[in-house]
């Protein structure tokens, strides 16, 4: 179990890793799980005692951007989850959105720009153009990273520069996306014998309407409804979007797609996570529980699949 690392989501990753490791140990005594942080000793360690399979539960860069998975592939080690190439696509929000749009899924209009563009062209002019194109409100977020770190909702144009400063602290490129209001939904997907299956959609009702870091990781702050309080037709549509996103990006084993369903019942794709959070307050484990599936059993099954699949 690889968890931790140097990303801003280190703590979330450690909690995810611990939770999955415990679930696996509890339900499958034949699997010996070792939890390992990612550091300079990792390659020596796994080369000296190669594990049968690796579960990368790193969140944020290196863990989710495909880099570490490339190394695991180069070392010839089987692992759970998406390939390096697919993870790389899923981690970059603008690229993901382009692929999703081509697959025919609605995703809010957005513009992604590096700091250098603002520096060279002048921030005022560029931000004016962004507002005029996207309208307000806008959600500003780092193009890479999760857990809503560095994300902010901008309702007035005057707030935009401060939101940019906050997002650029996390990423070299910032995504400015038209804010779609509606019901916040997460749909988790897992694979069984190569078939992608969607889990019951979770409706997220955060305090004050913003599902930020505190709302995500403080038990009790956010209210969840499973299945979401939407018509069966819309729930089916959400599931179809998540499955299409999973397939379009070539994801494997598990993923979680975040959506907003607008008042007209249209699901808008926001992003997909190739290494979904597995903490006590995370969405993927909640969906599993609602579906009557044990996290430990699912992980054990995915471990066996990964070993059969090989590197």
């Amino acid at each position, binding site marked *: 179990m690889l968890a931790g690392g140097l990303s801003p989501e*280190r703590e979330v990753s450690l909690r995810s890793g611990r939770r999955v490791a415990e679930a696996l140990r509890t339900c499958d005594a034949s699997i010996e799980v070792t939890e390992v942080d990612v550091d300079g000793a990792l390659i020596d360690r796994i080369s000296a005692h190669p594990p049968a399979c690796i579960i990368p539960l790193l969140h944020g860069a290196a863990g989710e951007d495909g880099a570490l998975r490339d190394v695991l592939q180069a070392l010839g080690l089987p692992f759970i989850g998406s390939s390096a190439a697919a993870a790389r696509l899923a981690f970059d929000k603008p690229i993901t959105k382009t692929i999703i749009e081509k697959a025919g899924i609605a995703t809010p209009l957005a513009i992604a720009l590096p700091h250098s563009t603002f520096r060279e062209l002048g921030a005022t002019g560029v931000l004016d153009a962004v507002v005029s194109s996207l309208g307000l409100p806008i959600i500003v977020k780092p193009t890479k990273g999760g857990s809503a770190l560095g994300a902010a909702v901008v309702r007035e144009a005057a707030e935009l520069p401060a939101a940019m*400063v906050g997002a650029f602290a996390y990423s070299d490129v910032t995504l400015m996306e038209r804010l779609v209001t509606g019901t916040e939904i997460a749909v988790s997907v897992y694979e069984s014998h190569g078939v992608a299956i969607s889990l019951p959609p979770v409706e997220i009702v955060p305090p004050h309407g913003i599902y*930020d870091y505190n709302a995500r990781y403080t038990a009790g702050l956010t209210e969840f409804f499973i299945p979401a309080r939407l018509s069966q037709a819309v729930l089916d549509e959400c599931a179809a979007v998540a499955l299409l996103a999973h397939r379009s990006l070539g994801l494997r084993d598990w993923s979680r797609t975040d959506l907003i369903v607008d008042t007209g019942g249209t699901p808008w794709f926001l992003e997909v996570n190739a290494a979904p959070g597995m903490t006590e307050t995370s969405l993927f484990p909640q969906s599993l529980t609602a579906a009557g599936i044990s996290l430990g059993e699912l992980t054990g099954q995915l471990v066996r699949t990964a070993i059969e699949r090989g590197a």
Partner: protein
Amino acid sequence: MSGSRLDPWVDSYAERAHGMAASEIRALFAVASRPEVVSLAGGMPFVQALNLDIVADCIHRLISQRGAQALQYGSGQGDVTLREQILDVMEPVGVSAHPDDIVVTTGSQMALDLVTRVFCDPGDVVLVEAPSYVGALGVFRAYQCDVEHVAMDDEGLIPSALEDAITRVRASGRKVKMIYTIPSFHNPAGVTQGGARRAQNLQIAQRAGILVLEDDPYGLLGFEGETPRAMRADDPDGVIYLGSFSKTIASGLRVGWAVAPHGVREKLVLAAESAVLCPSNFSQLTVSEYLATQPWREQIKVFRELYRERRDALLDSMAAVMPTGTSWTTPAGGFYSWVTLPGGLDATAMLPRALAALVAYVPGTGFYVDGQGRQNLRLSYCYPEPDRIREGVRRLASVVEAELDLTATFGTARGLHESAGTGVPAPDIR
């Protein structure tokens, strides 16, 4: 129809628990514990400078000779021999007392909790320095006190500002219960009140009839000149003095103490017994054995020299590489320097960039209850070796340069995103 909140007790928590939430800033500090990161964030004493073989001998001797006592419950007020020894430890700061005036606690943090518990009702006002020790702010908040900051300068708490604050609070119909101060080698500001300044502030407190809570964990860790005289030394009836072995021996032992007027002390003992029955006998007797058999004054000199060298590494490297417009305090002891960033930069918004550059600090907002301190950060020099400190400052300088560049682009240095909850690392973060 209601959904799940993942915590069945969410509607049962006390009002005082409502601020206890996950915090983005606190989560970021998880990275600071990694060896790649130069952490100038945490205030961990460099206990490696202790001779651990000697400590092991003390503990071995303790268990073999007095094991049954060390492993048993003890007095709620603390071991009497240790209380006598504490009088010797306080001699350099001028505090004289009777052993019965002392209450031994689980670190001075517990003494802070007990004093607040016996004095403060919800809504009572505690006056604290601006900025102030985050651990104290947490205690005051937990007891639902109103915390009011009082301005400091290079000599610490400003008397005229203290007087103004007392007048202002009283005019608003509220009651000032305590003045909380760290007069020597302040955490986080790194400044020290001179003798005259202490006397002035003490007179103001006396005239107003307000109790002074003097927190002095760093008093013996001065780098030059005489050890500052404690405020308690000049007003035993009006000052509760808090001391600690965390910085002079080892923080892991969790032994601190309060010296209080006798009426207060009785209440502190009863409050301590209701909280923990008694402080750890094992820890107390370990400290006592160490003080009785080891040249502890010499060890404090070792700590002082070590921290002085690290302070110099920090200040010299900041002078060499920090961008123009950055300023900082020059601590004459203790663990911390308080930095003011140039160009109105926001230390909270800048933290993720710093951690990506593998350097950590504590944003200034953690040391205020009212959102002040955005332009400030606290740097600790107590834990990393001097070369690591220099490397950390180099990294920090680059981060500040990059943030200035961003500010120049967007015309603002402030991040929009705010985090609830504590913005400081857990105590064991390096």
